[in-house]
């Protein structure tokens, strides 16, 4: 029997479904979710995902702390979020049920691995009675599936060790869900083959478990019907499914190619940024140098050294690392060298919630350095946008000889979405030029190189890299004489340089697209967003509009400087709401800049906004405006 066989059960069409896989950290739920996503992507659905795992590598088995979950939203139309509440929860053990139940919609479906609901596990999960029996699940559709035992049985003949047999149960779950939601099995099979090819027994066990799950759906009398979520009608093109961190890494590789400069990554591992280091470490064919430094300061230091040498210098980190890089960032501002600092934001302050998402580093990105040390800040808004944001950040850095902070967050980093691949030929040319000749005539007629002589339009300084004959010069973090670049303690020169550095960054406003407003022209309410709230805002705004209410929205990619038209745009609306995963950081910035009474819609819970939350908030604001 294969997945193309006629379904034995009636097929019910859904326009979307949100499934949440949850189990112990060791249960392989991230992998299961990932595979289900991949198959759905290949099938043509639109989708969005939300991995959600604990900070411990593997907390004690069976406890709620050890629960690892993966939510995926698949749809036959354009969607923007991993879904508000789960329609289906797959709970591999009591702890998973206990910790995730509140995320399931009322009346939702719950599949439990009933084999794990023994007294020991119930106790570990903190249940004093069995929720399968005590009415806890009243109102839900519950399927009790003996996943462990059926898996063990399915692999019994393969000579697999019991521990490995048990480990395959996530493939059983995947097979069953694939049956339920009419996902093709073939891609998963191919993947299992590629991944476990070397280990024949494990390969066979996983394949067997996968098929057993499918078969169980097909044959067991438990399920009344299968579901189908048709492919979405997406723009034609070649698609892949990509997480934000992968897209960002690829964007950096692309930037390096587009700039025709070797890529140098100086980084220190930190959740949730490490995967960019991991991904880039693979791409030696692209001439990418990755350097795992002794700490974040060395990471940015090495990147700055490479940048000084004419490489595209990048450092990747998360909040605690950004804090550590502050001083070196200030040096980069003073040196006016291109440098990318990628901050994958996570819950703070301090160590905070290392595996959870947040967007509370914005003010630090703008102001987290001593002295007047302005720099551009760019924020990605979706997993695939991380690719383009990386190129844009590099473009600005190179053109303006400035460090740029690129903000992403844990949600974008680990979340996936289908991405229509761009034509490489359409990507921008971001090459810059190094000085090769003197740029100044001294009074006595000698030709000299002045490292702080500027392009009159961009105010970018001339840049000569070591190895260039005749242009030897010295730069440093002490204030420099305008033009010449020698040390200068002269008061008026310092002020001039402070203003020049500020003007250079401010001037970038003319070199970035104006912010566009999406929505009703005559709306009273503007929703202003930045970063990963994009998806939730999009979904919420659509819902509000679907109710016939007028609403407009704008989303910022450039946080410093702001697009030139932002003040004008904000001025057009009676009310501006700013959803932020912080206490109101962009809100503060636009209030200060434009004196508009913008109001934050704040959520600081380590999880993204749901569309429903925002919808309610927007509707309330509209009601207020109309009252």
């Amino acid at each position, binding site marked *: 029997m294969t997945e193309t066989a006629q379904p034995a059960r009636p097929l019910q069409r859904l326009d979307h479904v949100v499934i949440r896989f949850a189990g112990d950290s060791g249960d392989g739920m991230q992998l299961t979710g990932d595979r289900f996503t991949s198959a759905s*992507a*290949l099938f*043509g659905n639109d989708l969005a995902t939300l991995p959600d795992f604990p900070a411990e590598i593997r907390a004690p088995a069976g406890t709620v702390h050890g629960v690892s979950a993966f939510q995926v939203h698949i749809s036959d139309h354009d969607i923007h979020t991993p879904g508000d509440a789960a329609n289906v929860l797959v709970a591999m053990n009591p702890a998973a049920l206990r910790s995730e139940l509140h995320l399931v919609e009322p009346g939702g479906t719950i599949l439990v691995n009933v084999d794990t609901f023994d007294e020991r596990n119930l106790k570990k999960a903190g249940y004093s009675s069995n929720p399968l029996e005590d009415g806890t699940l009243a109102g839900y559709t519950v399927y009790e599936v003996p996943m462990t035992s059926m898996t063990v049985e399915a692999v019994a003949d393969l000579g697999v060790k019991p521990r490995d047999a048990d480990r395959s149960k996530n493939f059983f779950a995947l097979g069953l869900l694939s049956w339920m939601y009419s996902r093709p099995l073939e*891609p998963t099979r191919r*993947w299992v083959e590629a991944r476990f090819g070397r280990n024949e027994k494990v390969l066979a066990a996983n394949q067997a478990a996968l098929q057993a799950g499918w078969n169980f759906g097909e044959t067991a009398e438990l399920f009344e019907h299968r579901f189908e979520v048709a*492919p979405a009608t*997406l723009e*034609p093109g*070649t*698609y*892949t*499914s*990509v997480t934000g961190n*992968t897209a960002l890494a*690829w964007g950096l*590789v692309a930037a390096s*190619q587009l700039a025709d400069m070797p890529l*140098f990554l*100086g980084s220190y591992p930190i959740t949730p940024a490490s995967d960019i280091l991991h991904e880039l470490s693979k*791409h*030696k*064919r*692209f*001439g990418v*140098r990755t*350097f795992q*430094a*002794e*700490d974040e*300061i*060395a990471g940015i*230091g*090495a*990147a*700055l*050294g*490479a940048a*000084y*040498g004419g*490489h595209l*210098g990048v450092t990747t980190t998360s909040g605690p690392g950004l804090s550590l890089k502050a001083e070196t960032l*200030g*040096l980069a501002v003073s*040196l006016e060298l291109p440098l990318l600092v990628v901050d994958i934001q996570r819950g703070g302050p301090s160590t905070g919630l290392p595996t959870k998402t947040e967007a509370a580093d914005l003010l630090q990105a703008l102001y987290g350095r001593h002295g007047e040390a302005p720099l551009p800040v760019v924020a990605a808004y979706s997993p695939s946008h991380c690719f383009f944001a990386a190129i844009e950040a590099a473009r600005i850095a190179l053109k303006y000889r400035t460090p740029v902070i690129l903000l992403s967050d844990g949600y974008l980093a680990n979340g996936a979405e289908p991405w*229509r*691949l761009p034509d*490489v030929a359409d990507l921008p040319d971001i090459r810059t030029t190094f000085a090769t000749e003197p740029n100044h005539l001294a009074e006595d007629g000698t030709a000299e190189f002045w490292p702080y002589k500027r392009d009159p339009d961009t105010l970018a300084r001339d840049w000569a890299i*070591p*190895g*260039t*004959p005749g*242009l*030897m010069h*010295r*730069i*440093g*973090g*002490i204030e420099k004489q305008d033009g010449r670049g*020698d*040390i200068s303690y002269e008061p008026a020169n310092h002020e001039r340089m402070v203003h020049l550095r500020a003007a250079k960054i401010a001037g970038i406003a003319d070199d970035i697209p104006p912010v566009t407003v999406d929505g009703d022209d005559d709306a009273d309410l503007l929703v202003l967003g930045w970063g990963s709230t994009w998806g939730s805002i999009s979904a919420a705004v659509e819902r509000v509009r679907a109710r016939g209410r007028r609403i407009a929205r704008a989303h910022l990619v450039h946080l410093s400087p702001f697009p030139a038209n932002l003040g004008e745009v904000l001025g057009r609306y009676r009310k501006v709401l700013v959803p932020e995963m912080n206490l109101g950081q962009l809100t503060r910035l636009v209030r200060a800049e434009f004196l508009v009474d913008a109001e934050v819609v704040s959520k600081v819970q380590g999880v993204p906004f749901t569309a429903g939350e925002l919808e309610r908030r927007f509707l309330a604001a509209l009601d207020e405006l109309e009252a």
Partner: protein
Amino acid sequence: MSDAPTTTRKDWASDQEVRWCPGCGDYSILAAVQLLLPELGVRPENTVFLSGIGCAARFPYYMNTYGLHSIHGRAPAIATGLAMARPDLDVWVVTGDGDGLSIGGNHLIHALRRNVNITILLFNNQIYGLTKGQFSPTSEIGKVTKSTPFGSLDAPFNPLSVAIGAEATFVARTHDMDRKHMMETFRRAHEHRGAAFVEVYQNCNVFNDGAFGAITAKDKRSEMLIDLRHGEPIRFGPEGERGVVLDAQGHARVVDVADVGADALLVHDEQRAEPSLAFALSRLSRGPFEPTPIGVFRAVERPEYGASVSAQLAAAQDQHGPGDLAELLRSGATWEV
């Protein structure tokens, strides 16, 4: 290097006025470097001097090369990036005892263990000069300074021991009173492929005058400086009447040659992969008040970091060809709509 056009000292001096205190030992180190470079057949445009912050760290401004005066303690990290990215350059790091061993200690030891191709000159004046006289991690216990009016309590580092403990492949010491010795030592450091660490005893005549006088003064040198020479028995003194032996516990000691016989002397071997000998020699003197070895303590071969990194890139490209961006974007599962 014979085809490299010749340069003179003038070619290596920038137009910047040298702003150290009159009498500072930094001047003679600068002169030694500016005199040495023409001899090496290298080019100013392929040479970079990197530094952190401190009096010593002003060094790059005075060299007519590429120069980067960075921030306190971070020069070895910045140099690591530069040397990895640009193996074609000669990268020098100039640092102080505070810059290199206090705030910058971690970057220093990691650059050493990785064997990054940089030449590190640590100007050890046993004081913080630029901030006007606080004790440093190499100051002796009991030192009275602005921040220790009752005497400091911190046991000092021995910079060479630190370096050797951190897997350094090249470790040497010289001092600012002997231009020839400096030039020779810097030449050796520059020749070394990998991270070369040179401690330079440097007099800060304003805040720690005479710190090394007991061993570097002209009339003290022959009794107090032990010139290490590879392959030779370690002897010193006006008549070579003193020498160094290693006892059964691996402890290096100064002896009268007459007492032990010339054959008992330790023969210096800078090339031993095993660093214990170099370490024992680094412990011979507990400070610049007893006979102190100078010269090259250790010079061994180990793969140079930047070269290894480049080799990995080259291997990947040789095997699979250069990367193709369009292909990269399609490297995961793709589907057509």
